[in-house]
């Protein structure tokens, strides 16, 4: 501790603090423009200069470190004169018109001018060429006339989100912020995350969608959780009346620390779409008509009663929603188990991360991400396999890029040269579906070269001998033959992993969506255990979940095998506990059907009714033609949704639901963080919260459920009934997210699972696993492998993003990505329409010739219905979880003559 005198006030300080920090801590205001707390400073604006007694010049408070006995004055005449001159110079350059400026009221330059009593600049700098406005970008307006060259946007773009689009160009008073090589933003490689806008202290960068919507003092900020991917970014909704006018990331909040992606920042307006469902609909003679809640709910209840009475509870099934709040999923599984007595409840984790839950429970004892996203930024090694993070989990990818720039080795393993590979130290272009062989190859090197963590394996793992025996069958040569990665690279990656610890493994659906998905997951777990990379900070197995609340939907028991909090349905004690708590008898004690089984049973008429909550299965399930056939075969289909979708067309009753921002509740992100979701407006028409709908149906089954809000559901049922959530009360969640397990009121939550190698089920289980090829491999008729995934600007089947201004413009149609080699061989031009066909279907789609695609691969997404990849995909699923093999099926492509 040292003592500094600032403006005659004695201040205690740490030796490495800056003058600015000490002043701020002591309530002494020093204005800043370019300073970004905690991030790289450019020290360029010089507005924060202060007088340090004895110094030759004024000292910028943001850069100057305090020293014992230092005497600082922050408002002497020389300081104020320098500040006044700087503000005058900034104001006299360009055009600063507060009257119409979006930033007015929260503009740093405006505040400083006010503080210094500057009404207008005393002169105009005529000698500088007037800067221009760049309006070319879909989401962002760059008004260079207002730019003060503080460089915060450049820092945001390069050092925070690492998108590397913005930079400084030219020199001296010609200096400007440039996009790429000085092209307009709309043509540049900008991915429109808007981080630059958030960083801009003045009105030089604004969100186009927000222009003219509200003055800064008219809005209130509501903190909530993003409705898109599983990262669970914390948002501030800027709300005027009941309208969200702008979204910003919550600085200092986990997991995103203020960062957002294009969807999170600009994908909020779907809730205002005129296409929203406003009233219950009942299908009559093939057409929907509006109905009252009572009529619709009675119909649903009666129909279910009827079928259950006739064919038993097994004849009904439910698919919950991984996009809606935890409270909704909890309520739906309760409806199925407690009211219908049916075990058949599942949700879309089935088609994405079910192998994660199954595999990690088997290896570690808990089916969640072991560590946290923030740890990506300061680990020593990042092993990313089967993850297109920059598009599917953009904000998580920023922390990976930060980590790499902070010195971690980044290893990217993927069949495509995904964008993240550009940042990688090693990029292994693996063949589709060869993961186990590749991973066994790495482990072979670790074991044969004695590079693995023997202490960790001995003390914390079992079954090592079996694993060893198995991986010895995969020397680099064989692993190389199967995976297409060279022997040298396998060996060098193994060394990189062993030499750079701690290290984190990160994967996404490239690992899980295979017939060997669970094995893939366990293989990644094997690797990390072998390296001793589990149960410590900056280590672990870190699956990135697909949907915003897919972790939560699993946690809430919307699975055929567990109640919420992973309490097994086959455990009699659990059954007894829930029977008592729910005041019912005869809860089903057997495993329910998984989604693929439900569809099969619909087709065979063994299942009669299906209740689909918020899922557009006609689009997201593999082999769409088959899905349609199954739904057509169903006797009764009910959908809860916020829009008509391809799926609701097959419903008999459609119930209009409250959307994100229309209800209070919680989401759980992929790092097990439970965060609050808040309400800013009422649902349209007579649409109702989903939990209310389920409760009303239960009422018609004679059950009275007390809970009447998200909070009551959480505090009275969800938390008390599951030990892992017991300590996470709604009040606590209101102050910021909590990572489960959180078992007591004092428990702050768990950032890292299996700490010190103490696995949930004792010892970590090493698994001896063999590589198996995909179910459908290319042949003469279908010579290409089709792999599928997600693109940046859309989310799933576009029910939300397709109704957000701008996002359709950014990605207006579907493409099939093919390699340059194949394109040249087949004479296919970039942008040309082609036919892609599989044994299950045919689509016409535009070819996108990309150097990022290897020969023999076709890559498509599922955002647009007509040319959705799922017309082509196979239903073959993971042997354990039945998760479909979206990542591999055989297709043919043809040029349209």
């Amino acid at each position, binding site marked *: 501790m040292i003592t500094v005198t600032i403006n005659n006030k004695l201040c205690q300080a740490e030796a490495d603090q800056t003058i600015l920090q000490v002043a701020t801590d002591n309530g002494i205001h020093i204005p800043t423009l370019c300073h970004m707390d905690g991030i790289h400073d450019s020290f360029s604006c010089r507005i924060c200069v202060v007088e340090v007694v004895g110094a030759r010049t004024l000292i910028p408070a943001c850069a100057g470190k305090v020293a014992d006995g230092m005497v600082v004055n922050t408002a002497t005449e020389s300081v104020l004169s320098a500040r006044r001159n700087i503000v005058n110079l900034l104001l006299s350059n360009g055009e600063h018109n507060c009257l119409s400026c979006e930033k007015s009221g929260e503009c740093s330059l405006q505040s400083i001018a006010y503080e210094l009593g500057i009404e207008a600049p005393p002169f105009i700098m005529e000698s500088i060429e007037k800067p221009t406005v760049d309006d070319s970008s879909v989401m962002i307006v760059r008004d260079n006339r207002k730019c003060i060259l503080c460089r915060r946007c450049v820092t945001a773009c*390069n050092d925070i989100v690492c998108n*590397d*689009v*913005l*930079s*400084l*160009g*030219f*020199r001296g008073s010609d200096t400007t912020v*440039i*996009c*790429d*090589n*000085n092209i307009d933003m709309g043509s540049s*490689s900008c991915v429109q995350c808007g981080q630059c806008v958030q960083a801009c202290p003045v009105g030089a960068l604004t969100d186009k969608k927000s222009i003219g919507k509200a003055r800064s003092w008219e809005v209130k900020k509501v903190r909530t959780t993003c409705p898109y991917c599983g990262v669970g970014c914390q948002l501030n909704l800027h709300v005027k009346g009941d309208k969200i006018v702008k979204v910003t990331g919550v600085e200092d909040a986990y997991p995103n620390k203020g960062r957002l992606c294009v969807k999170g920042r600009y994908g909020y307006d779907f809730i205002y779409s005129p296409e929203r469902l406003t009233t219950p609909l009942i299908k009559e003679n093939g057409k929907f008509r509006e109905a009252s809640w009572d009529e619709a709910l009675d119909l649903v209840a009666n129909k279910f009663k009827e079928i259950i009475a006739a064919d038993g509870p097994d004849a009904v099934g439910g698919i919950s929603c991984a996009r809606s709040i935890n409270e909704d999923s909890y309520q739906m599984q309760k409806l199925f188990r407690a009211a219908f007595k049916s075990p058949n409840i599942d949700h879309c984790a089935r088609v994405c991360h079910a192998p994660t839950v199954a595999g990690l429970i088997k290896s570690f004892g808990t089916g969640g991400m072991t560590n946290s996203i923030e740890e990506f930024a300061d680990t020593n090694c990042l092993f990313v396999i089967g993850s297109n993070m920059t598009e599917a989990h953009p904000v998580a990818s920023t922390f990976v890029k930060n980590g790499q720039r902070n010195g971690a080795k980044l290893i990217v393993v993927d069949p495509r040269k995904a*964008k993240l590979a*550009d940042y990688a130290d090693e990029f292994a272009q693996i063949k589709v579906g060869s993961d186990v062989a590749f991973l066994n190859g790495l482990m072979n090197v670790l074991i044969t070269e004695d590079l693995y963590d023997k202490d960790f394996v001995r003390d914390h793992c079992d079954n090592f001998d079996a694993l060893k025996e198995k991986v010895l069958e995969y020397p680099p040569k064989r692993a190389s033959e199967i995976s297409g990665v060279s022997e040298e690279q396998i060996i060098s990656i193994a060394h990189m992993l062993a030499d750079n610890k701690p290290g984190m493994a990160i994967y996404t659906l490239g690992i899980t969506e295979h017939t060997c998905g669970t094995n893939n997951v366990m293989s990644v777990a094997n690797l990390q255990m072998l390296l001793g990379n589990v149960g410590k900070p900056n280590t672990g197995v870190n699956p990135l979940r697909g949907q915003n609340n897919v972790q939560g939907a699993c946690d809430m028991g919307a699975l055929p095998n567990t109640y919420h909090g992973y309490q097994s349905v086959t455990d009699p004690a659990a059954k007894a506990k829930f029977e008592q708590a729910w005041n019912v008898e005869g809860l089903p004690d057997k495993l329910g059907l998984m989604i693929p089984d439900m569809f099969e049973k619909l087709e065979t008429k063994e299942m009669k009714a299906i209740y689909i909550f918020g899922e557009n299965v006609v689009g997201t399930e593999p082999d769409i033609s088959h899905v349609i056939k199954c739904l057509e075969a169903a006797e009764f289909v009910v959908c809860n949704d916020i829009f008509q979708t391809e799926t609701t067309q097959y419903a008999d009753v459609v119930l209009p639901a409250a959307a994100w921002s229309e209800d209070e509740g919680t989401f759980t992100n992929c790092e097990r963080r439970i965060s609050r979701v808040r309400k800013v407006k009422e649902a349209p028409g007579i649409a109702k919260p989903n939990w209310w709908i389920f409760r009303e149906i239960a009422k018609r089954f004679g059950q009275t459920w007390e809970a009447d809000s998200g909070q009551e559901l959480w505090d009275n049922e969800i938390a008390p009934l599951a030990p892992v959530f017991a300590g996470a009360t709604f009040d606590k969640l209101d102050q910021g997210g909590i990572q489960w397990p959180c078992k007591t009121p004092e428990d702050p939550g768990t950032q890292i699972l299996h700490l010190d190698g103490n696995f949930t089920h004792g010892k970590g289980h090493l698994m001896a696993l063999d590589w198996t090829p995909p179910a459908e491999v290319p042949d003469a008729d279908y010579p290409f492998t089709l792999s599928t995934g997600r693109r940046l600007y859309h989310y799933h089947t576009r029910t939300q993003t397709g109704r957000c201004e701008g996002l359709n413009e950014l*990605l207006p149609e579907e*493409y099939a*990505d093919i390699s*340059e080699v194949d*394109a*040249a061989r087949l004479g296919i*031009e*970039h*942008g040309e329409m082609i036919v892609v066909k599989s044994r299950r279907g045919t689509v016409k789609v535009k070819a*996108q*010739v*990309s*150097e*990022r695609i290897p020969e023999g691969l076709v890559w498509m997404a599922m955002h647009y219905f007509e040319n959705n990849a799922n017309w082509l995909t196979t239903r073959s699923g993971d042997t354990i979880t039945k998760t479909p093999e979206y990542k591999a099926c055989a297709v043919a492509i043809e040029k349209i003559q």
Partner: protein
Amino acid sequence: MNANARGCMEKDERTHLVTDIVAKHKNSKGALIPILHEVQELYGYLPVEAQETIAKEMNVPISEVFGVISFYSFFSLNPKGKHKISICMGTACYVKGSGPILDKLKETLAIGVGETTEDGEFTLEDCRCLGACGLAPVLTINGKVFGRLTKDDIPEIIEGCKTEGGSVL
């Protein structure tokens, strides 16, 4: 259009040379500026396609490449004229009258500093001290020094470039 996409473009012969230059320097620290020097030698300036190749081969953002190029006055984003006239604006030359000579050059060539005549014959630049202060004021045309100038020498010098087709310079 997706940024990943790109057609199969015809690769200019020089692109390969740029790739070679990058390969040669790639592993040394701080290689960007030496690479830019060599590439500029190759083209006479730094065209967009060369910037793109450098960015791609070095795996650095193109914004950084452009940022560096545009920072340094030695690097040029535009092709230069056949005769590159650099007038020394060092203090010694200035005191001895390089200002009026520059004015005369602008007038004679009808271009400003940093510009190239429409016929691509002349580029006019001012430069920092050439170190030929003994000959002040001086200018160079494609490296050849003309010293102890007066503004009346300018038309003759320009005319000389035109008639000799630059071959002597």
